[in-house]
Structures are given as structure tokens and as C-alpha cells.
């Protein structure tokens, strides 16, 4: 009986959290973003203000979910994220990964899905925050490297999307290209969710049987290797991407055990 009641409670508060996120996003786009847009300052300053407001909102949202008993978030080596101008990369096991990470990053440029840009409310917040649409190709890599050169922090998910089973997916090479183009090392954050939940294809009411334990482990930087003479940057991106994926596979294995 107790597990049944506990499950019903979890479904209820999960539904509430989804509704809060949707409603909160709408309120933010309708009332907060227009006010922030009216404040003086150059575009960069206004984007930072909006990013900071998103950061505070996500922080509050995480606290609400923790208060409701849905999850508990533990951030290891959080001080490593405080340094500005970093290329932060993370694996993508759950729907809320960007929320967890942005709640720890007062300033972060993000690359968002085309679907986000197509949603009028989300688009308003994304554009005002200076986020990029996920357009394939070289222009996005250049734009990302440009932001890093300006000393801004950039957040990327090398997998691009979540997997159906919560396991580590295939790494696309965009993040590696950005690291090579900008000459910046990658700051990996390993996200671990136990039990696996909020995966791709899962419905919102398919809740876990217990409170989710989310660990965000901020790791040492992974620097691109020196290019051997005559070697192309395509090969370098493949090598760096492969190293990064191996790094994640090992770290996640440690966290699992």
C-alpha cells in the first residue's frame, strides 16, 4: 500500500513540476523578458542579465523539485564551474540536464533545438539570452568559438540528444570542433541519474519508484592534443571526441558501481 501511495504522490508532483515549468516559462517570457529587454546596456550585458535570470529561475525550479521529494541534486567540485570563459560539456541522460547545469552557471551560452526556437515563448527567452539555434555546419562552430574568445562560457551536449535507455549515446563532433577551433580545453560535467529516469520516449507519468539521485560531477579539463604535422582537423576532432566519450564511459562506470 505504501509503495502505491508513494507512486501516486510522485506522479502528482511530477505533473505539478511539468506544469510549473511550462507555466513558469510562459510567465518568464511574457513578463520578465520584456522588462529585461527595456533595461539599458549593450547587447552582451542584456544577454548576461537574461541568462542570469534563467539561471536563478532554474535554481528555484530545482529547489522546488527537491522540496517536493522528487529528486536530490549533488554537485561535486562546483567551484570548477565558477571560472568564466569555459567550454562546458555534459552527457545527456535526462530531460532536465540543461536545467541542472544552467542552475549552476550564472552565465552560459547554450545551443538549443530548433523546436525551442519555433516555440514563441521559449524563443523569446532563448533569443534574449543570446542562445544559438542548432543549425548544422561550420557557421555554428565559428559562432561558438567566437563566444569563447569573448570570454563567455559555452554549454554543449556532445550527444546532441537523450538516449532511450539513459545510457551514454554516440558523441557528435561539434564540441570537439569548437574546442579545436577556439583552442580551449573542454570542461566535462558527468551527469548521473539513479535510478535512470526522464529518458527520451518516456511519458511524464512514468515515474521512478523512488527519489531520483542526481550527481553532477565537474571534472578536470580535457585538452585537445597537439596536431601531428600534416594531420587534418577532421582527424583531430575524431580523436578528441573519442577520448571524451571514453572519459565519460569510465566515469559513468565508476558512478554506477
Amino acid at each position, binding site marked *: 500500500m505504501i509503495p502505491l501511495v508513494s507512486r501516486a504522490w510522485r506522479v502528482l508532483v511530477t505533473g505539478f513540476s511539468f506544469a510549473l515549468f511550462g507555466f513558469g516559462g510562459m510567465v518568464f517570457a511574457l513578463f520578465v523578458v520584456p522588462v529585461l529587454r527595456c533595461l539599458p546596456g549593450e547587447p552582451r550585458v542584456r544577454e548576461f542579465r537574461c541568462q542570469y535570470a534563467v539561471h536563478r529561475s532554474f535554481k528555484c525550479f530545482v529547489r522546488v523539485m527537491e522540496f517536493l521529494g522528487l529528486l536530490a541534486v549533488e554537485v561535486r567540485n562546483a567551484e570548477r564551474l565558477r571560472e568564466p570563459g569555459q567550454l562546458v560539456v555534459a552527457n545527456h541522460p535526462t530531460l532536465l540536464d540543461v536545467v541542472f547545469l544552467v542552475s549552476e552557471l550564472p552565465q552560459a551560452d547554450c545551443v538549443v533545438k530548433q523546436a525551442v526556437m519555433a516555440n514563441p515563448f521559449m524563443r523569446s527567452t532563448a533569443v534574449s539570452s543570446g542562445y544559438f539555434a542548432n543549425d548544422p*555546419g561550420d557557421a555554428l562552430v565559428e559562432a561558438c568559438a567566437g563566444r569563447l574568445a569573448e570570454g563567455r562560457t559555452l554549454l554543449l551536449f556532445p550527444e546532441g540528444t537523450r538516449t532511450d535507455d539513459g545510457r551514454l549515446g554516440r558523441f*557528435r563532433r561539434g564540441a570537439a*570542433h569548437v574546442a579545436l577551433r577556439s583552442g580551449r580545453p573542454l570542461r566535462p560535467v558527468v551527469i548521473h541519474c539513479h535510478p535512470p529516469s526522464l529518458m527520451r520516449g518516456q511519458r511524464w507519468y512514468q515515474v521512478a519508484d523512488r527519489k531520483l539521485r542526481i550527481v553532477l560531477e565537474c571534472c578536470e579539463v580535457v585538452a585537445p592534443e597537439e596536431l601531428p604535422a600534416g*594531420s587534418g582537423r577532421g582527424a583531430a576532432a575524431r580523436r578528441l571526441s573519442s577520448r571524451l566519450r571514453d572519459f565519460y564511459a569510465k566515469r559513468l562506470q565508476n558512478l554506477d558501481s
Partner: protein
Amino acid sequence: MPSRDEIIAMVKEVLQQEFDFADADLKLDTHLVDDLDLDSIDAIDMAVRLEERTGLHFEDDDLKSLQTIRDIVDKIDGRI
């Protein structure tokens, strides 16, 4: 004017230099995406190298139409 065999060798050399592929992985019917996992950024890097070697210019539409190594060779062979 280079022969078709020379064009094939040049295309393979570009792919080996740019992406470190082994010669055995590069057949005429090797699929650029399915077999070699080339993405849009790789395609641009490959096109830049091919342009340097051939003096030809590859438009975005050209790159999108290339599926296999044979397609690259045909494209160059047809233009030189």
C-alpha cells in the same frame, strides 16, 4: 588532365590525410555518412582540401549530393 585512377587516388589521399582513414576503409562504394561517419563540418573540410588539390569549387548543393566516394570521383572527373 588527370586520369580517373589518379582522381581516385587523390580523393583517397585527401580522406586519409584529413580524417586518418585506413586505405582498406576507402572503396569506391564506401558511403560517406553510413560508413565513414562524415558530418556537415567534415564535408566542408573535405571540400576545402579537394578545392586546394583540384582548383574546382564545390557548392553546398554539390556536397549534399555526394553519397559515396564514387560520387566525389564522378563529380571531379566530370568537371576537369
